Structures are given as C-alpha cells and as structure tokens.
C-alpha cells in the first residue's frame, strides 16, 4: 500500500491521453483522494507528442511529482523521451506493437502490452486510434486497483451525450484493458491506501474552470475578452454560462475593445471581468489606467505564460507580476492577487470581486498556464456561504452626492440614477475634484493621488498575515506566490524530515501585501523567494524585488527559474543548496 503514485502517460495528443487523465482525476475527486495533473500541449495544431501526468494519493497532494512511478509509453519517441523520468524501481508499461525497449536495463520493470492490436481486437479496426486511451485506462484501473464501478460511471457520463456507439466502444476498450492479463506486475504495483472519507462532496476540475465559476459565485455577470492561449477557456465558459444568470460575455475585436466593453459594463453598475495572457495584458494598460483614475471597479485575469512578446505560449511563467503592479503610466494603484492552486482559483475570484466592489478599484488576478490546465480535486464549495447575488442599484442619489469624497469610499451613481441635486455626474480620466469635475489644481492632484493610493492602504490593513507552514522560527523561510504553492510545501516537508527547521509562507495578496510580514521574516536566518521568473539585472526575481524594497532586508534572496516548467521539489532544494548546504 502506498500513499500516492505518479503515473505518466506518454503518446500523441491525438490519442486522447488528456481524456484518460481527466477521467482519472475525476475519479480521484469522487473517492476522496487528492489529485494533481500535469500535461503538455503539442506545438502544432495538428497535434504531436504530448504527455498527461497524474498524481493520485490519499494524503495531501501538492505537486504533480518530480519523477514517475509508472510510465505508459505509446510510441518509441514517447519511450525515449520519458524513460528518464521514471524512478529507479518504477514500472514501464509500453505498447509492444510500437516500442522495443532495451529490457536489459535492470533499473526498471518492463511490461509489454500490445496496446494497438489488443484495442483493434476489442473495438474493431476503424476506431483504433480512439480506443487505445480507454484500453490503457482499463489497464491502469486494474494495476492500481481503482474503484471500477465509479470509473465506469464517470466514463458513461463523459461519453453519454454523444452518439451511442461512442460510449459502447469506449467501454469495450476499457473492459478489454481491465481484463488484460498482466501477470505478476500486479504484485509489484501499488495499491493506494484508501483515503479517509471526508464526508463532503469533492469535485475535480482545472484552474480556468474554477476561476470562471468563482467569478460567477462572486456575483460577476458581465465580461468581455479576446481569445488567447491559455486564457481562452475562461472566456469560452463564461460566454456559455453567464446568460443562464441573466448576464453576458462579449467576444471583442481585440483586447483594447475587450477591456473597454468591460469598463462599460462596470460603469453601468455591473462589476465586470476581462482577461487575457501577457500580450493582451500589455494592450490593456492604457484603459486600466483609466479605471484607476475614474475609480471604476474591474476584474482583470492574466493567465501568465512564457514571455516576453509571444514568447512560449504553452509554457508556464510568473513574469507578469511587475507589469500587474506597475505596467500603466502614471501613479496608478491597483490590486493584484494570485491563486495558489486550482481550488484557490475559485476563492480568489470571489475575493477579487469583493475588493473591486468595496474599494471601486481594478483588481488583477495572476493565474498561470500550469494552474489553468491542470486538474485537482477539492471539497465542493459551500455555495450558500460564498455566493453573492449582484444588485444594480439605481436608487436616486442624494443631494449631497459626491463620487470622490476626499475622505471616505467612492460612490458611483450608475447611469439611470436620478440625481436629487439635479446635477449629473461625468466620470473621467482627467484629474478631477470630489465631484468628478476636471481640474489641474496642484493641491487637488496631490490629494486625489493620495486618495487613490490610500484605498490600497486601507485594504492592506484588513488583510490577515498569511499562515506559516512549518516551524514557527528557524533557519529558512521560503516565500512563494501563485502556483508554486504545492512544490514549496513539499520541499518544506522533505527538508523538515531531514531535521531542518524551516517554513514557508505564501502570498495571495501581492499588491498591497498583507501586513506583518516583517515580523515573520525576523524569525528566520534566511529568506528565499521562490518564483518562476528571471533574476533580472540585479539578481532578484520580481516578488523578491518588491519585498527587498519594502523591508530593506538583505536576508531576502531569490531562487528563480525560467525554463517554462513548474518547479520540481529538488530544484527548490538545490536552489537553497546554492546559498547554504541543506543536502549533504
């Protein structure tokens, strides 16, 4: 019995290996197990080599795993590229119709299965490409002793809607794989420890979906966007979902129009959302600056990918943090948040909506490519608690109406509001007085600049200091943000097992940051900021730059990487090693 297992399935994207991964993840969710998936996207539209990796376990699963316990190789190229990722003692199951491995390599156990021909046998010739994945899933179900009835139920739900024969063929292939005689490999293999029943419903989904649903839960009903990888799925889902709630999502002609349409919604009294990836965010910088000046709330999602420019559209990076905070011209304060995992994509969207409404500010959410596409299982949210139903408030504005009082929160009167005082408001990107009238009065510019910035100070004051994971004081503190959450936690656990005193802290609020960090920092000898971006001209990553500036604490140093892949636990550990020996 093992706690968890990392399974990597390597083939071509056309083989539907993403489908197997998705089904496995959903199964894990339904059996109270934790799961994290990881996949690569081929660089051509027509498909090509691709993997799907899934880590399933009974404990808390935080990263997709540094090495695989089990490799399924569909082709020679799959085998060659991925055998190095298998741990010593691991099992390599390969399609013996396609792959001829050097089985003398004693580090691994090789299990030949004629995936192609066995599938053809089971399903019939024409459908073979479609069936291989289901055959492999059947094999995995037997190897890992998965909950077969539930898996069949999930498969039926997935393929049920379509042409009947599709489901039939899928199940034919699955059953054939399940029944395939594997001999003694079953003994070598792992039975997963059953998870402790949580008594709660669990759901499995990817980060983009969780984010879209979080927006809905947060009461967002309007939005606009323009397609770009890896943001598009959020807009595609909102386009389909929002009309059910009386809202709408508009596909614009470009990102400049998209943010402007969204600001039109928000101005109208409907807190709106727009989003994109890096190139699109760069195009939104001017309008975002208007949102700060006019104090119109807005949510902007950036699903980060490798940059600069078109960069690496299907790789992960966290290199848009500085832009999120400082990308527009002028002193342009806005809020920046980042979710730590798929579940948090849901909750951060709700938090973004709350902040945008309360302070009438634009809020940027920094997700990333890895988070957007990987599947995780988590406890189904308690909607009764978190759900916000939006209200368009058109009650008449009182005579003393002032949209931008020098002290106090912004008060918008959306169009359609009767102004009791008789004077109607114009919102503007020019500097203005408390009534919103343009002015170039020096004193007012000073006060209004402070007013816009002080909203963030008030937000800061209400934020809780993030929890410490690990030792309350010690040698090392790791600081992270965004999707590095999982690997950082695992690194802490591994190093603590070795007897080191260390901890991690994770920032969800990046601008402004939560208060109290300096006191936490005081309790450790070394502080390492772990981020997937470049160390810049002066040797510091983006969050590290901000933290060092704020606290002027030279203990704060950077562990950065820029290879477009998520952090491996061992990379974090060796990153620390570069400064102080932790492995010996």
């Amino acid at each position, binding site marked *: 019995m093992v706690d968890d297992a990392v399974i990597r399935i390597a083939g071509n994207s056309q083989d539907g290996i993403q489908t197997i991964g998705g089904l496995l993840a*959903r199964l894990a969710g339904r059996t109270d197990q934790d799961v994290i998936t990881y996949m690569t996207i081929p660089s051509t539209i027509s498909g090509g080599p691709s993997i799907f990796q899934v880590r399933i376990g009974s404990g808390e699963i935080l990263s997709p795993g540094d090495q695989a316990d089990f490799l399924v190789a569909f082709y020679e190229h799959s085998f060659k590229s991925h055998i190095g990722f298998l741990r010593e003692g691991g099992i390599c199951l390969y399609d013996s119709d396609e792959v001829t491995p050097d089985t003398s390599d004693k580090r691994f156990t090789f299990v030949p299965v004629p995936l192609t021909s066995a599938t053809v046998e089971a399903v019939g010739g024409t459908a073979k490409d479609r069936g291989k994945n289901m055959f492999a899933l059947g094999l995995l179900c037997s190897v890992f002793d998965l909950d077969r009835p539930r898996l069949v139920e999930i498969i039926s*739900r997935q393929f049920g809607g379509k042409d009947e024969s599709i489901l039939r063929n899928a199940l034919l292939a699955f059953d054939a794989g399940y029944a395939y005689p594997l001999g003694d490999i079953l003994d070598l293999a792992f039975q997963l420890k059953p998870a402790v029943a949580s008594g709660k*419903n*669990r759901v499995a*989904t990817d980060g983009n*979906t969780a984010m879209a*649903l979080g927006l*809905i839960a947060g009461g967002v*009903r*309007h939005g606009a966007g323009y397609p770009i990888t890896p943001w598009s799925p959020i807009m595609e889902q909102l386009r389909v979902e929002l*009309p*059910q*709630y*009386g*809202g*709408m999502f*508009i596909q*614009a*002609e*470009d990102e*400049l*129009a998209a943010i*402007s*349409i969204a*600001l*039109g*919604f928000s101005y*109208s*009294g*409907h807190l709106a959302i727009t989003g994109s990836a890096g190139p699109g965010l760069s195009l939104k910088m001017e*309008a975002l600056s*208007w949102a700060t000046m*006019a104090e119109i709330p807005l949510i902007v999602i950036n699903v980060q990918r490798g940059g600069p420019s078109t960069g690496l559209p299907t790789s992960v990076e966290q290199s848009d943090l500085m832009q999120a905070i400082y990308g527009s011209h002028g002193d342009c304060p806005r809020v920046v948040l980042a979710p730590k995992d798929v579940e948090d994509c849901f909750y951060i969207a709700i938090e973004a909506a709350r902040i945008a409404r309360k302070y009438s500010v634009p809020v940027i959410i920094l997700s990333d490519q890895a988070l957007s596409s990987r599947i995780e299982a988590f406890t*189904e949210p308690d*909607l*009764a608690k978190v*759900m916000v*139903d*939006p*209200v*368009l408030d*058109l*009650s008449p504005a009182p005579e003393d109406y002032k949209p931008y009082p020098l002290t106090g929160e912004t008060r918008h*009167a*959306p*169009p*359609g*509001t*009767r*102004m009791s005082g*008789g*004077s*109607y*408001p*114009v*919102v*503007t*990107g*020019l500097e203005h007085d408390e009534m919103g009238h*343009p002015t170039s009065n020096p004193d007012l510019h000073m006060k209004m600049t402070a007013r816009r910035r002080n909203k963030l100070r008030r937000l800061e004051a209400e934020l809780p200091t993030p929890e410490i994971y690990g030792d309350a004081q010690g040698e090392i503190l790791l600081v992270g943000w965004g999707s590095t959450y999982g690997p950082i936690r695992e690194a802490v656990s591994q190093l603590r097992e070795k007897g080191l005193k260390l901890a991690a802290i994770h920032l969800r609020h990046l601008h402004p940051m939560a208060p109290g960090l300096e006191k936490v920092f005081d309790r450790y000898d070394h502080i390492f900021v772990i981020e997937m971006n470049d160390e810049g001209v002066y040797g510091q990553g983006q969050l590290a730059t901000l933290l060092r500036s704020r606290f002027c604490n030279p203990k704060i140093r950077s562990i950065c990487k820029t290879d477009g892949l998520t952090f491996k636990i061992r990379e974090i550990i060796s990153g620390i090693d570069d400064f102080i020996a932790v492995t010996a």
Partner: protein
Amino acid sequence: MSTITIKRPETSEPVAKLDKKALSADHPTWCPGCGDFAVLASFFKVVQNLGIPHEQICTIAGIGCSSRFPYFVNGHGVHYIHGRAIPLATGVSLSRPDLNIFVFGGDGDGFSIGGNHLEHAARKNLNLTYVIMDNFVYGLTKKQTSPTSPVGFKSKTDPWGAQDEPVNPMRKLVASGATFVARTHAAQINHMSEMFERAIKHPGFSVVEVLSECVVFFKGSFDAANPRKGGEFPLIPEKQWDESPDDWKAHDTTDLSKAIKLAEDPWPGKFGVFYEVERTTKNDNEHALIADAQAKVGNASSQEILAKRFARMR
C-alpha cells in the same frame, strides 16, 4: 429566475420636461466660434423634443476638443480615453437597455485611432447613436493632419500640405455596416437637428457626420457647403416610394452601393441620409441568448444553477 436584481425607486414622480437650462452643465471650453457649440445646441433641442428622461441620458466620448462634449451636457456621462468610446458604449448599450446612449467625438478619435472599433460596432449593429464632429484636423493637439484633412492642408505635421488620400467618411461608414448613416453641417441647425432626431429614433447603430469648423486651426474649411459663406448646401433627395413622377430619380437609402456612389461626389458633396436599413441588433441577439438560457434553467436560482454545475464535476 436568476436575473440580476435591480433596485429602483418604486414610483417615479412626474418629471418636469427638460429645458435648455436643465440640460446645460459646464460652460463649454471651446474657442469662440467653434462649430461644436452648434452641435451641442442642436443636441439639446432634440433631447428636449424627444422628451428623454434626465437620468436616461448617457453621453460618452473619447479625447479631443469635440470629445469634451459630455462635460457640457447635464446628464450621465463618460470622458474616456482616445479612440475607445465606442467599445465602452458597447458595454453600456448591451447591459442597459433602459438608457439612451450617445457617443460624441472627433475625426481623429473616430477615424484614426478608433477606426476599428467603429467598424466592428457598426457591423454588429450595436444600438447607439454616434455623432462624429469632423473638423478635418486635430484640434486639441493643435493642428496636425487628421485622417480627413484634405490633400494640400498645411498642418504642423505636413507644413508643405497633406499628401495622403483622406478617409471618405460616408464611404467608410456605409461600408462598415452601420444601419443609419447621415451627413450634415454644424452651420445648418435645422438640418442637423433633423438628422440627430432620425438617428436617435433609428434602432441600431446610427452615425451622423457633422462638418464642424475648427475656427482656430482650419478656418473656412466648410464655407463651400455654407450658403451664408457663398457656398451650397445640396440635399439628398430621398426616395419616397410614392410613385410621384420624380421619385425614380431620388436616392434609394436602402441601396448600399448607391450610397457609396453618392459618397464619391466631389467636394462638398451632398447632405442628408445616405443609408438607412433595419437589421437585428447585437442587443437583440444577446438578449435572446439570455432568454433561451434562462428558459432552459427554468426557475432555478443562481445558487441552484451553480450547484448543478459543480455536481457535474464530482
């Protein structure tokens, strides 16, 4: 049903009809003699005539002399960024069917930096009225060549006289798919008001180009179309479909390629309605999607719909 809750005053007291005073806000910062004053006056007149309730007036603009329009109207307004007034207005129009949306702006704002948004809103037939105050020059930034500056116009960026073929506004607007396209002159208040009134009444994307003189940077630009300055103001005879003897000679405002042909007339060209058709608006389409989707979910509350969505991911 899962619609968005709207909090509104229960009884709306009888509203005084708006007069010019009620409609006026800041005194315009335009130069004395600027054509834009007349556009504002005409707008006030039409809004009064149409009896639009005060709180339903929403004027939206980008940046430019002309784009300061919203400050001078006492109504809800937005002074947005250069060239993007149309997409901002799109968000307002789609989500707020209760409002009357007016976009005002200049030739630079509309045809240069904003040219693309104009086209897409027009083909989608967004329900709003757009008035382009065309002065053939960049006013606010003090005399650079604009996309409508005629060849030979001496600006700061073309001191030897502009060389590029200018945009033909009527051709561009008709070709864009706008469903109401008209042309008028700021010195012809009555004609201008008539065009505004028809544009506002038109369901869908209606656009009016007003020749509005910049007396500081392009004085006399539109004299050729001003009878008081010795020019001519030739009107487009519109086909009435009434079988009157000369009706066959008149302009068929539903014929796109004829409207484009009319736009080829030599300067100062003709004035009036070039094109006018009815076509489903984007507003209708989006609201139909909502209606369909809501019919499918029946009486379910927002929370119930979302709960169901989660249940599918178990």
